[in-house]
């Protein structure tokens, strides 16, 4: 086994959570890489959907934006944006909404809107885009992000998209009948919500990662499952697939 970076491990661990029968609404960035590695390895029949309206897309390089021409060229079909959000997302056709996050709390609530007060922000971030409804209309939600104390916080500044709220049955109380965040994949670990409290709990750590490393890069007191597994290291095929994809992508985005 060759060496791999924590980010590569994160993307590959995230890719393994997807199957050929999934219909996945893909967020840009880390989710996009994971979804395409899955498609190119163990889940060739996965349906990847980007919010620009492309259904069943199979890009050769990762898109820089959610609307790159590559997505449309390789899609089964391309629909309008209102149709995408009304029929396909709101209609309940999406099995997995795959999101990244700028700020995340232990209940899977995500902030990509502002740091600081909404009306007088310290940092104005791009905002939610499709995320508020992806988080509530997808059958379940996977989240992937690299760990940092700035990113994984006790309290987020703004609820861009709702995870499990204050935990427990908060979703149900709001009349949301989808599962919400069921999986968090970071560069150090795999987390799943506690069945009762819905707090993200570490169930697997990547090779070489210690509990201290997970805690030092997380802004809340980390809970570990009774039995914490070790995430299998990337296989040669997974690593090669990811690296080739990144190399093709870098070359394409530089205009070469």
């Amino acid at each position, binding site marked *: 086994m060759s060496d791999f970076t924590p980010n590569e491990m994160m993307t590959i661990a995230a890719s393994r959570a997807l199957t050929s029968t999934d219909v996945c609404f893909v967020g840009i960035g880390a989710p996009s890489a994971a979804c395409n590695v899955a498609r190119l390895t163990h889940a060739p029949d996965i349906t990847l959907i980007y919010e620009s309206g492309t259904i069943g897309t199979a890009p050769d390089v990762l898109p820089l934006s959610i609307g790159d021409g590559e997505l449309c060229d390789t899609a089964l079909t391309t629909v309008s944006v209102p149709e995408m959000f009304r029929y396909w997302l709101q209609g309940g056709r999406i099995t997995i909404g795959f999101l990244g996050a700028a700020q995340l709390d232990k209940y899977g609530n995500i902030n990509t*809107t502002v740091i600081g007060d909404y009306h007088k922000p*310290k940092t104005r971030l791009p905002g939610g885009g499709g995320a508020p409804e992806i988080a509530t209309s997808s059958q379940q939600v996977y989240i992937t992000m690299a760990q940092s104390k700035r990113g994984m916080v006790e309290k987020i500044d703004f609820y861009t998209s709702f995870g499990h*709220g204050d935990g427990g049955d908060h979703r149900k109380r709001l009349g949301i009948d989808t599962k919400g965040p069921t999986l968090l994949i970071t560069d150090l670990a795999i987390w799943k919500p506690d069945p009762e409290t819905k707090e993200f709990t570490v169930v697997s750590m990547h090779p070489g990662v210690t509990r201290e490393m997970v805690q030092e890069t997380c802004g809340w007191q980390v809970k570990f499952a009774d039995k914490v597994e070790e995430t299998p290291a990337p296989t040669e095929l997974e690593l090669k697939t990811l690296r080739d994809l990144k190399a093709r992508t870098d070359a394409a985005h530089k205009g070469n």
Partner: protein
Amino acid sequence: MARFMPLEQAVRENLKHGDTVAFEGFTHLIPTAAVHEAIRQGFMDLTLVRMTPDLIYDQMVGMGMAKKLVFSYVGNPGVGLLRRVRDSVENGWPRGVEIEEHSHAAMANAYEAGAAGLPLAVLRGYRGAGLAEVNPNIKSITCPFTGEKLAAVPAVRPDVTFIHAQKADKKGNVLIEGIIGIQKEAALAAKRAVVTVEEVVDDFSDAHPNLCILPHWTITAIAEVPGGAHPSYTHGYYARDNAAYLEWDQIAADRERFRLWMEEHVMKAKPEDFAARVEKLRVAK
């Protein structure tokens, strides 16, 4: 009834100070040339509507043209933040801008409602979302049949919508293909619709019967501007200039560098300059 005219005239005749205007395009077919013309003509106090205000809205906000932004994602897609918008929101430079922020689902529904002549859009949305608390235009409505509480937002009805498309025929019918985004709804929701096109062809007689076509009687003015979407792309004509999106992050980071860039590439430029900008991005037809 669509009239063909130079872009300078199309913008001058259809945009007014204080208008609510949508320059739409969902990463694809962004009407950059039309925006640059609006910047040159110095329109002010605009309410700028767009799902994904990217570089062109960064430019208009940086030039002080915007009174208000109505949007659902204010970023440079795949790159990061919009630095001129940030400077306006965080520091009031060159002026503060009022914000009405939605989700994509709500904006898409709101344009569709506008096109459908309805006063509001109804969706299963914003559940648990913070935007519902900070945007007074997000309200709720109870389904009279099931009792379900749903989100309601006002329809978007721009004074004028600008879009870019592949081609018009000689009568002024407009064809859009690829990622069609929200352009059809945005054009039909508006009082006036202005379209820039890559080319004008004789007719669409050999086209597939289900293509996205805006009939000539839904359009106010058409200007032929090859390359007019750059650095966005036009499916079948030229590719997205991803390097330009990456470069914009640097340009917009600094007020003076931004000003110089705008002077050289917008204020001193003409619609005809766009064709050369996409020359190296052309795709085989």
